[in-house]
């Protein structure tokens, strides 16, 4: 049954036919379709004329939209940084525990991660809403006198995103740190390096694949995030994801919406290429 390099057998074709058909028809073709639409022209009543119109992409530079795109990248970048700052210590803490404890602790990271995304965003609506727990806590601590507006702010969106995406950072970091050979640390310290030095010169550089993978896994989906800004940002913190949704469901400018979606997809492509160049392809499968 084992094929040679380049060997295509009838059996292999049979095994791959369903996936090729399904992903080809319902993943690749739709992507090619919005690629074509992104260069089309939207009619005034929602129709679309195909062609080569780069105007949809140039539209992004309209100050109104540029502001949204800029805000999206700033929030996605801040979110990635927060996840890295919170995720690294925890991944480090877990990775150097004994085997059984490690499994238990990483499972505890995975449970919230498996919980419905929508509900995790909603949880922050409950917390930040009106005179909710967050406001009560602030008043209790004497930081504020009355309820202040917490929800529908860029801060609320960033917080909700950090909460939603933190496990996406912890898991690859953990995977990288777990493979780490403790003897390297011991060697560095035997040679007189301080703990601080050992971390920055040995441990951290060796965990770079995890840092890069985690950052991509947080940055890309947060740039395309639509639920969190919708629930926690309201109409004042509109991000690219909301703009895409508006173009498709309300404004009915599918050409512009497609261009925005293509930008998000292109971002992913660039990120993957960056990862492959920095870390290599064989790791791509392992992640």
């Amino acid at each position, binding site marked *: 049954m084992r094929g040679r390099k380049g060997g295509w057998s009838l059996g292999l074709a049979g095994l791959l036919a369903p996936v090729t058909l399904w992903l080809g028809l319902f993943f690749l073709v739709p992507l090619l379709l919005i690629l074509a639409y992104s260069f089309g022209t939207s009619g005034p009543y929602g129709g679309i004329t195909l062609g080569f119109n780069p105007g949809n992409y140039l539209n992004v530079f309209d100050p109104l939209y540029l502001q949204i795109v800029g805000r999206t990248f700033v929030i996605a970048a801040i979110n990635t940084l927060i996840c890295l700052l919170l995720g690294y210590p925890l991944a480090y803490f877990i990775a150097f525990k004994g085997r059984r404890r490690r499994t238990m602790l990483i499972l505890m990271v995975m449970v919230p991660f498996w919980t419905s995304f929508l509900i995790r965003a909603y949880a922050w609506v409950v917390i930040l809403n009106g005179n909710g727990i967050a406001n009560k806590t602030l008043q209790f601590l004497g930081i504020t006198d009355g309820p202040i507006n917490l929800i529908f702010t860029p801060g609320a969106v960033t917080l909700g995103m950090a909460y939603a995406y933190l496990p996406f950072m912890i898991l690859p970091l953990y995977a990288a740190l777990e493979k780490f050979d403790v003897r390297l640390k011991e060697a560095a310290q035997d040679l007189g390096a301080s703990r601080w030095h050992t971390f920055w010169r040995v441990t951290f550089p060796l965990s770079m694949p995890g840092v890069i993978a985690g950052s991509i896994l947080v940055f890309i989906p947060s740039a395309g995030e639509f639920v969190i800004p919708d629930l926690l940002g309201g109409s004042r913190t509109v991000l690219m994801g909301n703009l895409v*949704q508006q173009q498709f469901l309300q404004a009915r400018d599918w050409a512009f919406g497609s261009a925005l979606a293509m930008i998000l997809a292109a971002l992913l492509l660039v990120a993957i290429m960056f990862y492959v160049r920095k870390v290599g392809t064989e790791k791509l499968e392992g992640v």
Partner: protein
Amino acid sequence: MAAVRGGPVYKGMGKLPDRALLVLSVFIYLFLYAPIAIVIFFSFNDAKSTQNWAGFSTRWYGELIRDQTVLDAFYNSMIVGVTATAIATVIGTLTALALSRNDFRGKTFADSAIYAATVMPEIVVGVSLLVFFVAAQIGLGITTIIIAHVAFTISFVTIVVRARLSGMDRSIEEAAQDLGASPVQTFLRVTLPLILPGVMAGALLAFTLSFDDFVITFFVSGVGSSTLPLKIYSMLKFGVTPVINALSTIVVFTTLVIILGAGRFFAGGDDLKNARKDS
């Protein structure tokens, strides 16, 4: 997998950084769990408000069960979840078999396409499918939701089953064939039972992803095909009520039970971790 791991921390190291790390870690775990715990807590609140505690009550669960639209949404979610899981599990398993056993021209492309499907931002998948269904004049409804869910869960099943296959000893299959078993017999009597835990874990994973999906479903659903996440979202748009807390609690526990079940098939849950990380 070095044997030294978990050994004593090297002598003479200050205890302070370790303590700080421990405290920080506890806080991060709190951060991960507290918000969900708050939702669950308030689902048992005997008041209309979601901000003040007025005693224990299960009235919101009662209200939930009497709400026909919620029951319809639950029914839709189950239909979609079960159907999409069945299709995705079969296709994903076949794909995993093809990819782990063969080295063929175009394999890199196949691998890349599988991984791209797991990391593509959901909104891009959602709108592209919407455009596709409209262009192909396929009416939006349960069928389009199932098609979409199969499309985004196949890759996850493939990854999980492949992980199981890679740890399998091929010589057992060779032995079966040497003893005269046909390829089909070998697959049904030897390979399948061995990879079954992986297939089951993949199926449970696919079901959870389908059951929890909001973004993609949002774009490809039609009138009357609301699933539970869509129902929660539309309830939220009308305002925060304790009923949403009760519904959220049920969804959280359903997912939890399924995932812990999947974890049992895969000792330690390592493979689930690997699969979801690509999402």
